[in-house]
Structure formats: structure tokens, C-alpha cells
């Protein structure tokens, strides 16, 4: 019997090798088959307690984790701490200890503070899955992106992937860069300097990255173009002159959609600002896999829950 690489937590992809990612993608494929059945449930995690701790708003990620846990027959409890005083380190530890005492086996955490899941993992005896922490990491998003790319294009190795948008503030970008480079893709980061930060920061960790400030150049020959959400607060912070100017330079406009052709995948982690970083035409184009990303998210999270429950 083949057994999976053992790990206790999934907090980022920085500690995950290509072999383990490969195993997860294979497991995800099987989970997707389960989700295609009339009865979308298997008993693998029967009697286990999964707690979703969301300290930050989220629709798709929370529902996706909940559906994933239920599809594996786990008990799911949703803990939302929006606006509560639980955001300080010490009380987070207390919360986790309480969950431990209540019998939680797996904790899924979303937190606005980068690194919060590491703190939780230190004080929790079960498994921890990071559902997004600050600007740091969003490993399940990166894994579902990898799965979606491979499902559509048959491989990840040697593909040219352009990540465009608000990269400096993006945990999705960071986890995607880890995953994509580990799996052998060539990654280009494309953003205005104010939304990218110093190139040397990126190149220090990932010397193989290509950095660009010109989307029309960067997307030449791209197999995948991934647009990131532009948070409107960035405007107030003076990082951008105007939304219209941003769209003209960095948005996936109908004109750029035509330039890309039918074979380049268009991705977006959601939620989208349609008309800003991506036009409605691009979001719904036949080569857009944005809905596949959402669907595949449930299967990827099932794969992780299953592996961590072993």
C-alpha cells in the first residue's frame, strides 16, 4: 500500500516538495470524482471534528472548506470572530486551547495577521490548515490553481505563467510562486512598481522569477495569465493614480483577451472587481477557468483534510 508523505500542518507551500504536491494533486483528482457522484460523500473522516476559524471575511474559502469537510463526513463547526477582540496573540492562543479541549481534530484558520497559523500550530495538538493569513500565504488557493492548470493544460512544468496585479499585498501570489516554481513553471510577476515592491525582494527568494512592469510585453507567449484582485483601499493609500489608468495598463481588457488567443488560460482567485483588473468579457471567455478554480477548491481541500487526518 502506498502511503502519503506525512505532515502535521499545511501553512504554506514553502516546505512542500514537488513529490508531495504531486501526491496532493492525484488525491484531488480522486476527490473530484467523489464530488461528481449523486451522493457526494464518503465516510473517511467520520467522527472527526473540523473547526473553521475565520477571523477575516470570506465566502468561497469558508464554504469550500465546509463542503470539503462534510463530503468526508467530518463534523464541522464554524467559528467567526469578526470584529471581536480575539485578534491579539494571547487570546488567539486561548481560543485554540479551548478548541483543543472541546475536541477539535483539525483547525482551519483565516487571519489578517501574517503568521497567525504558525502560532496556532504551536499550541494545538491536531492539524492546522492555513486558509489565508495576511500577506503571507494561501496554500489551498495555490494548490487549486496548480490543479486547475494541470487539468486544463496537462502539465505545469515549463509553462509560462504571468501573475498580474496587486502582488505586494497578495498572499495568493506568494503561495502560487512557491507552488508554480516547485512544479517547474516559469513565473513572471507583472505590476506597477508601487504594487510590486523592490524586485530584489522577490529575486532574493526566487531568483528564477521574471519581473515586468508592462503587461503587453509580459503576456507574450503566456500559457496562463492570472489576475489578482485590486483592493480599492490601495487607491487611498496613494499607490495608484486612478482605477481607469490601472485598468488600461494592467487589466485583462477585451483587447488583451483578443491578443492572448484561445489557448491561454485566464485565472483569478476571486472575488473579482469586474471592469478593473479583469473585464467581464475576459472573466467569462471560453479560456477563463475562474469557475473551475472555485469547483476544484473543494476537491483540493478534501485532499488536504484527508491527508492530515491520517
Amino acid at each position, binding site marked *: 500500500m502506498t502511503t502519503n508523505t506525512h505532515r502535521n500542518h499545511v501553512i504554506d507551500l514553502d516546505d512542500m516538495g514537488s513529490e508531495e504536491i504531486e501526491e496532493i494533486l492525484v488525491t484531488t483528482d480522486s476527490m473530484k470524482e467523489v464530488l461528481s457522484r449523486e451522493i457526494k460523500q464518503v465516510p473517511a473522516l467520520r467522527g472527526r471534528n473540523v473547526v473553521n476559524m475565520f477571523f477575516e471575511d470570506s465566502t468561497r474559502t469558508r464554504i469550500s472548506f465546509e463542503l470539503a469537510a462534510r463530503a468526508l463526513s467530518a463534523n464541522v463547526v464554524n467559528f467567526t470572530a469578526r470584529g471581536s477582540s480575539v485578534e491579539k496573540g494571547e487570546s488567539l492562543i486561548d481560543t485554540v486551547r479551548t478548541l483543543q479541549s472541546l475536541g477539535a481534530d483539525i483547525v482551519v484558520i483565516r487571519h489578517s495577521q501574517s503568521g497567525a497559523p504558525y502560532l496556532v500550530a504551536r499550541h494545538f495538538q491536531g492539524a492546522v490548515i492555513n486558509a489565508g493569513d495576511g500577506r503571507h500565504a494561501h496554500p489551498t488557493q495555490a494548490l487549486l490553481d496548480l490543479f486547475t492548470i494541470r487539468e486544463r493544460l496537462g502539465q505545469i512544468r515549463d509553462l509560462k505563467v504571468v501573475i498580474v496585479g496587486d502582488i505586494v499585498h497578495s498572499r495568493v501570489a506568494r503561495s502560487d510562486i512557491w507552488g508554480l516554481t516547485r512544479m517547474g513553471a516559469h513565473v513572471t510577476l507583472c505590476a506597477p512598481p508601487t504594487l510590486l515592491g523592490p524586485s530584489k525582494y522577490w529575486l532574493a527568494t526566487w531568483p528564477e522569477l521574471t519581473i515586468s512592469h508592462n503587461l503587453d510585453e509580459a503576456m507574450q507567449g503566456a500559457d496562463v495569465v492570472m489576475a489578482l484582485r485590486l483592493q480599492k483601499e490601495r487607491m487611498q493609500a496613494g499607490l495608484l493614480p486612478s482605477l481607469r489608468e490601472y485598468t488600461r495598463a494592467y487589466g485583462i481588457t477585451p483587447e488583451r483577451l483578443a491578443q492572448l488567443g484561445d489557448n491561454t488560460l485566464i485565472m483569478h482567485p476571486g472575488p473579482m472587481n469586474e471592469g478593473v483588473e479583469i473585464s467581464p468579457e475576459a472573466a467569462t471567455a471560453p479560456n477563463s477557468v475562474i469557475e473551475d478554480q472555485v469547483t476544484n477548491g473543494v476537491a483540493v481541500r478534501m485532499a488536504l483534510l484527508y*491527508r492530515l487526518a491520517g
Partner: protein
Amino acid sequence: MKDRKQILTADDIRRALVRIAHEIDERNGGLQDVILVGIPRRGVPLAERVAAAIADFEGVQVPVGQLDITLYRDDLRTRGLSAQVGKTSIHPDITGKAVVLVDDVLYTGRTVRAALDAIADLGRPACIQLAVLIDRGHRELPIRADFVGKNVPTSRSERVMVHLRDIDGADEVVIERTHQ
């Protein structure tokens, strides 16, 4: 030290599978509603070979599927490491059909128990039957096979290994005993 004894040759395996194919035909009074479902890994090529034997003598292609039972196992908690989940692909509608599960070795019966649960989630077949190449005894559940290639009395310390050319390069069944 290990003792290794061959109990079935490639020819023995072929003959056993042809006989099982005939028995499946006879038991079900024809093959129109029969579906063969292999349990990975080695149940899958075995199911394909039974189907090929049926095609040879009856000229009918019975559907062959595969059913991974990993997510239905009862030992996830005790085993520690999660097993890699395999593929399931089955004729879309098994309701009303005669599903013949095919596996290489029947031992404790726990794999078959998991397979029965998995089948129940996929539909409601008219009946479920079980075909195995080797029945080695030591059942822990009230489960028996309908079609058996060979009954092999074993002790629990022995290992029965089915090798198939599709996976292992050659066809044979061996029994291995480890001396203390």
C-alpha cells in the same frame, strides 16, 4: 530467512480466470446485466481479463469499472498515515445490475466490507457478487466469495502475493513464509 513457494503459474491463473468467467455467466443466467468492478490495484487487471475471457467465448463485452475503497476503510485512525487514494470509475448506473466485485486475495474481508459500502453510495444494484483469485481464509467479517480461483489454507504469518504482468511484469501467485 524467507521461504518462497509458487502456488499458481501463469497458466493456472489463466485457467482459473476462464473458469470464473464461465461461472459468472452460468450463475447470472447470461451476461446482459453483469458489470465487473475491479478493486485496485490488482483487482482491476483481473476484472479486465475475466471480461476478455467472456468476450472470447460469448462474444459479449461486459462493462468493466474500478472501485477505490480507500475512503471507506475502517483503519484510517489506527494506521497513522493516510493511504494514497486511487481512482474510481464505474458504469454510471449500477442500479438493477449484477455487480461482480473482483479482487486478487480475500483475507480478513475488510476490503470487501468497504467495497460494499462504497457500492451502496453509488446506486442500488440487483445483487453484488464477489470473485477472487485466491481465498486464503482468516475472515474477520461474515463475508464469503461467490467465485474463487483457488482456496489456499495459510497461517497469518504467511504472505500471499499475486503478481500480474500488467503491474509486476509476470503472472504468478507465491506464498512467502518468514522464519524467525
